[in-house]
């Protein structure tokens, strides 16, 4: 990075942080710190979007598009339906009871132990998930500066903790729209420059034709095989339950839309996301696909992870890894030559020669991919701590090697903005839930607002430390964006089940739903270990199991009388 990049990076980050501190100056009561102020719908919409779209989204999703194409977009097919259900059923109840956390509602509807169970499930999965989101900027820092990964994880984690503790929920909300502005400006610039850097004569239609031939544009898969990870069915059915759980029961999201000035503002904020989420994720994945096409015409490294690449460079010529690199480069050259032949034949109108050349290019590319996969396994033998899947490094490598100075600074700033916006929201929610659902509910029932505010800051620091600890092991994840969703899928189904029983099965009481949730979560752990079905089905299974077990247990336990204070809700 040059001096210009550092000016852009530091200027944008300090500007946003300073603005957040200035806008929220003097707002230091518990309500504004945890819930925020009267936020308009557009700011809520951006805040909900920014909370979900962490640096993992902008760093790892293009890598997913590069490696596997557009199929990942199907996971978001559940978003519109899920957000409509939340706007119609969940939102009026949460707002009507004026709760700080979603789990307070479980306490009012059922009992204390069910509230604590819901909060504990949230804290466990979100605390671990926060580790994955902190890992993404560490990749950037390691790639940019060559610093040790552990050091960058700890330093970026500490920075986010300071930012979150200093600002609270209000600062998170007021700065997220500007952070998103930097993110979108950075991504749009990257797309424009990428299109400009594609070979002369390669039109956008040609680019799509290449991507399609290499199976990167298979956005929708109609397979009914449950073991296939991303299909239209797992996306619409499983994805709806995953997104319903995430947006409806995860405090990091609930806290965002409860900050709305009214029910109308909260609803419109959610509908904004319901419309924008699929096109946004599609564009980020398409960016990865375009980078894939770019690297068919330009030399690509055997490994995008610089640590892996350096390992090969450090070895002597007799090392088998060096031989893999030579073979990979040869396959790449063949691919490039055949694609140039195809482009020429296509523009000459020679369909037969074009088809032959494109088929030869695909064959040569597949040879290269086989070499890369074998070398990746071999690398693990030489260096067991290396990351076997380096798709997460694709986008940052492209940025650093291909984009001009100034733009590099803008995109690195975008990754940090994404980390700060999403991580701060997560840590704020973790701190809020621990304070409200555990500290004030269990430990200090007579705690004043000032004491709760102090406790919330300490709990935020505690969860930040947990996230850093987990991030130190995040390199074991296959691909970050998938790992975040897999982790959520394990816990979200049962969390959703608790709320579905609360809303729609009025005859079920606290004891029945509590033990049903424990049973259902145990079942999910077993199924996750034993089955190889797509993880998108687990939220559906978890929710269905929790509801079914609750009804059965309640029938066994006998009639439950609903508390009078909730009779009207």
């Amino acid at each position, binding site marked *: 990075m040059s001096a210009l990049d550092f000016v852009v990076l530091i200027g944008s980050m300090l500007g946003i942080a300073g603005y957040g501190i200035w806008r929220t100056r003097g707002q230091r009561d518990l309500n504004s710190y945890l819930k925020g102020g009267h936020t308009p719908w557009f700011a809520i919409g951006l805040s909900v979007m920014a909370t979900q779209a962490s640096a993992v989204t902008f760093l790892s999703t293009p890598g997913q598009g590069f490696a596997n194409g*557009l199929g990942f*977009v199907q996971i978001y097919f559940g978003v519109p339906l899920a957000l409509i259900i939340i706007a119609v059923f969940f939102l009026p109840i949460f707002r*009507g009871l004026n709760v700080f956390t979603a789990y307070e509602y479980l306490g009012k509807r059922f009992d204390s132990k069910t509230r604590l169970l819901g909060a504990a499930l949230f804290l466990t999965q979100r605390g671990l998930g926060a580790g994955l989101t902190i890992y993404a900027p560490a990749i950037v820092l390691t790639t940019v500066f060559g610093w040790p990964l552990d050091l960058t994880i700890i330093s970026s984690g500490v920075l986010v903790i300071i930012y979150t503790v200093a600002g609270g929920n209000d600062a998170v909300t007021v700065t997220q729209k500007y952070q998103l502005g930097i993110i979108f400006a950075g991504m749009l610039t990257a797309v424009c420059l990428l299109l400009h850097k594609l070979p002369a004569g390669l039109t956008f239609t040609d680019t799509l034709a290449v991507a399609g031939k290499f199976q990167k*544009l298979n*956005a929708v898969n109609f397979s009914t095989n449950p073991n296939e990870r991303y299909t*239209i069915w797992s996306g619409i059915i499983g994805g709806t339950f995953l997104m319903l759980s995430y947006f409806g029961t995860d405090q990091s999201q609930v806290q965002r839309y409860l900050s709305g000035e009214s*029910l109308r503002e909260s609803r419109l904020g959610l*509908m904004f996301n319901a419309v924008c989420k*699929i096109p946004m994720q599609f564009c980020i994945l398409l960016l990865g696909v375009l980078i894939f096409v770019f690297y068919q015409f330009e030399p690509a490294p055997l490994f995008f992870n610089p640590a892996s690449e350096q390992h090969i460079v450090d070895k002597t010529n007799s090392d088998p890894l060096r031989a893999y690199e030579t073979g990979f480069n040869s396959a790449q050259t063949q691919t490039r030559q055949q694609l140039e032949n195809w482009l020429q034949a296509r523009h000459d109108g020679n369909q037969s020669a074009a088809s032959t050349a494109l088929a030869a290019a695909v064959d040569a590319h597949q040879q290269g991919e086989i070499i890369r996969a074998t070398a990746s396994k071999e690398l693990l033998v030489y260096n067991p701590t290396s990351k076997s899947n380096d798709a997460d490094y694709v986008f940052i490598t492209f940025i650093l090697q291909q984009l001009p100075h100034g733009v590099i600074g803008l995109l690195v700033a975008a990754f940090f903005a994404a980390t700060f916006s999403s991580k701060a929201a997560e840590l704020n929610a973790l701190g809020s839930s621990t304070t409200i659902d555990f500290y004030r509910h269990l430990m200090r029932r007579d705690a004043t607002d000032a004491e709760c505010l102090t406790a919330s800051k300490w709990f935020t620091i505690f969860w930040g430390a947990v996230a850093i600890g987990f991030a130190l092991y995040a390199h074991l994840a296959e691909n970050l964006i998938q790992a975040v969703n897999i982790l959520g899928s394990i816990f979200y189904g049962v969390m959703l089940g608790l709320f579905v029983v609360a809303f729609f099965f009025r005859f079920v009481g606290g004891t029945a739903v509590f033990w049903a949730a424990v049973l259902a979560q145990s079942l999910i752990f077993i199924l996750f270990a034993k089955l190889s079905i797509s993880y998108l089905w687990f939220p559906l299974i978890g929710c269905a199991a929790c509801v079914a077990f609750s009804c059965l247990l309640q029938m066994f336990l006998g009639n439950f009388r609903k508390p009078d204070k909730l009779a009207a809700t």
Partner: protein
Amino acid sequence: MKSSESVNKSPTGNQDTGLPLFHSWKGVYLFVLASFVLWVALLILLTRMYS
């Protein structure tokens, strides 16, 4: 704020949304579903055209 809450209590919400084109919540939800169907259709078309 309270009056706004009570006005919007209806789950499906037939109250005014304050939007220029969609005056009921049902209209907003239908628009969201229609945009979803349109996106899926376009993605299917893209898949069919280039695979």
